[in-house]
């Protein structure tokens, strides 16, 4: 194992003890107590505290990388000290909304999921433009940043960027004598071949409304196999031919080899136990599977989305500076610090993030070497990134509501004898109603 991979469980024992103290639970309360221990450091009381609101401090595979960024920033200057605040991912967005409704988000820097980011910029109007950082660092943010722009200004920079590809278990593929599919029909075929219910499943696709966030996250890509779109501007295209065909592909996969009606958590466990041959997922899926079962990691590889265009959605979770903060400058300083090529490259290596926020490979030899060293990232790199705005039109800002309408109707199509076209016709009518309100 390369040193850069020593994250997750092994990371804790590797890091210096101070970092462990500063990580997660102890960070907020322990700072005063630790000040005397940190020789030569400016005393904590004299610094202004910057609150970084996020869910990353709770992520088992990723918190170490982020703690290192905070640590380095805190040591790099004597004016500010960044501390974590926030909630685990499943409750994160609702708690941020509660804060916004209660008079303001109690943080200086906000990390947000795509939907929450769009709302923070457009509805709450709490975000500060980050164009000066982009100019200072001379970076070119990736195309996916389009949804973070308003009136020509950029309000967020990617902290975590994920895209979709086919993640597969090499061992199971070899045993069945198949290769990753490159076309839709082939995909259904290999999936069926790799399925032996209930012992082995050909593909992991989230498929219940109880896991609606994750389901829509994946399903959203299925307008792409036949080059369709969900919407253009304010016109929904849910029942357009290409989109319906894409969903029919999903349905064929569902019938061929998905654990139907099984919860996302159980599907992930099946995958970690080596009972799922492939998944249509994002790069952190690999990190999670590795955390659950380190033995599975060497078997995991990725392939480009199995359709001609190889296009898949790119979902940016940005860092934003909140204009409600008393320390906007400090917040900007931190984001700028985190975006520096060497800092970002190390974060990406530690956390196995493979999609950089900007042209990082051109700026960091280290990062280039890291990508070359990871066999499983090839599929993610071959995938062509598509911004949500490109397929969602104006609905990109009401993404969850759009997704809910699609999933509810699509679920009818999954019942015996259900028709995808009929379901999407119904969805289209509801979406036209939604269009009138945005």
């Amino acid at each position, binding site marked *: 194992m390369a040193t850069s991979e020593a994250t997750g469980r092994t990371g804790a024992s590797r890091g210096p003890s101070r970092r462990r103290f500063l990580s997660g639970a102890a960070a907020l309360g322990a700072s005063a107590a630790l000040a005397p221990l940190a020789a030569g450091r400016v005393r904590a009381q004299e610094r202004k505290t910057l609150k970084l609101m996020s869910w990353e401090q709770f992520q088992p595979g990723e918190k170490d990388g982020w703690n290192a960024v905070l640590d380095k920033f805190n040591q790099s200057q004597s004016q500010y000290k960044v501390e974590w605040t926030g909630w685990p991912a499943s409750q994160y*967005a*609702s708690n941020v*909304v*509660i804060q916004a*409704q209660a008079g303001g988000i109690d943080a200086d820097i906000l990390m947000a999921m795509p939907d929450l980011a769009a*709302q923070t910029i457009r*509805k709450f109007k709490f975000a500060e433009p980050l164009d000066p950082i982009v100019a200072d660092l001379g970076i070119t943010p990736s195309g996916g940043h389009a949804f973070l722009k308003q009136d020509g200004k950029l309000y967020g920079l990617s902290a975590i960027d994920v895209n979709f590809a086919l993640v597969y278990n090499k061992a199971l593929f070899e045993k069945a004598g198949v290769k990753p599919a490159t076309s839709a029909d082939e995909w259904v075929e290999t999936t069926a071949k790799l399925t032996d*219910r*209930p012992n082995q499943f050909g593909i992991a696709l989230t498929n*219940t*409304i*109880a*896991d*609606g966030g994750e389901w829509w996250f994946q399903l959203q890509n299925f307008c792409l196999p036949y080059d369709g779109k969900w919407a253009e501007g304010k016109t929904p295209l849910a029942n357009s031919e290409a989109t319906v065909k894409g969903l029919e592909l999903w349905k064929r996969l569902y019938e061929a080899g998905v*654990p*139907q*009606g*099984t*919860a996302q*958590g*159980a599907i992930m466990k099946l995958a970690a136990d080596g009972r799922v041959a492939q998944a249509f997922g994002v790069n952190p899926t690999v990190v999670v599977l590795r955390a659950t079962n380190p033995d599975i990691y060497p078997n995991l590889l990725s392939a480009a989305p199995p359709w001609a265009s190889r296009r898949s959605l790119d979902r940016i979770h940005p860092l934003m500076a909140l204009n409600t903060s008393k320390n906007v400058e400090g917040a900007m300083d931190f984001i700028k610090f985190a975006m520096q090529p060497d800092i970002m490259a190390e974060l990406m290596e530690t956390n196995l993030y493979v999609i950089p926020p900007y042209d990082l490979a051109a700026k960091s030899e280290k990062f280039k070497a890291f990508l070359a060293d990871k066999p499983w990232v090839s599929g993610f790199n071959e995938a062509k990134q598509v911004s949500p705005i490109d397929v969602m039109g104006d609905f990109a800002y*009401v993404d*969850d*509501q759009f997704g*809910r309408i699609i*999933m*509810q*109707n699509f*679920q*009818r199509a*999954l*019942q015996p004898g259900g028709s995808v076209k009929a379901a999407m016709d119904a969805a289209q009518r509801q979406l036209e109603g939604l269009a009138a309100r945005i």
Partner: protein
Amino acid sequence: MQAATAMIGGEGDVRVRRGVLAGKALPYLLVLPVLVLEAVLILYPIVRGALFSLEGPAGGLDLDNYRFMLADPDFWRMLGHTLVYTLTVVVAILVVALGVALLMNWSFRGRGLVRSILTVPWAIPDVPVAITFVLMLDPTFGVFNRLAGLLPFIGEDRQWLLDPTLAMAAVIIVTVWKGFPFYALVLLAALQNVPDELYDAARVDGAGPLAQFRHVTLPGVRDTIALLAVLAFIFSTQQFTLIWLITGGGPVDATTTLAPAIYLQAFRFYNFGYAGAIAVIGFLVSALSTVAFVVVQRRIASEP
């Protein structure tokens, strides 16, 4: 307001004696701390929350959210689901709780253990409860299908959470399982307050166990059952966590009741005003049902 006295005990009121504490101020002094606490920490936020519903998208105050809601077919379907879920839960939970309370009220060896076992569902946090039931109901690996396979007519390939009717049944079963210990505990307290003399008298009159139940036990706990029916109604309209984690309001929207609908609007769709409007309607439905129930209950109580 007069209606509420139905559930407010009538008999044996303590008459005024004398002294400072016997003055007219006494009852007000006794309830004052509760009144202040509720007014500041609960009632004020309720009013503030209700005001969200008047906030239009432009920021002004208007009734747009209500207008939109009443024209929204999803809203009416949601109300229907809420009604089915709530009424079934109320009836089922009270029947189960009464049965269990009667069991717990018997004296037998190991009663302490039985009482503890029957309290466990209440003690387990919602999240593990939901996860366990989802696993048990899993169409592929679930034990429900295995057990159902042992019974005739059901078969072992039920898609519990993918079938709208079965999904509703499933969330009702889980709600009752998780919730009944509370109702059983309160009923047990009420059963323990039924004077033994009444049972003795009934037995002297030659009443069997069933007659004793009908003529002594039930009248003794009737007011408590009425109170619990109101509480079960209120609480089940507000059930969120279990439904959300087990079905997410699906399949389609079959289990989207009031609380999940409000959550979706407020925290997923960022329509706080619309969420507020649904909440106000939910509040009014609960309030009016409670008052109506109390009136009916009073009528029945006053009949000879």
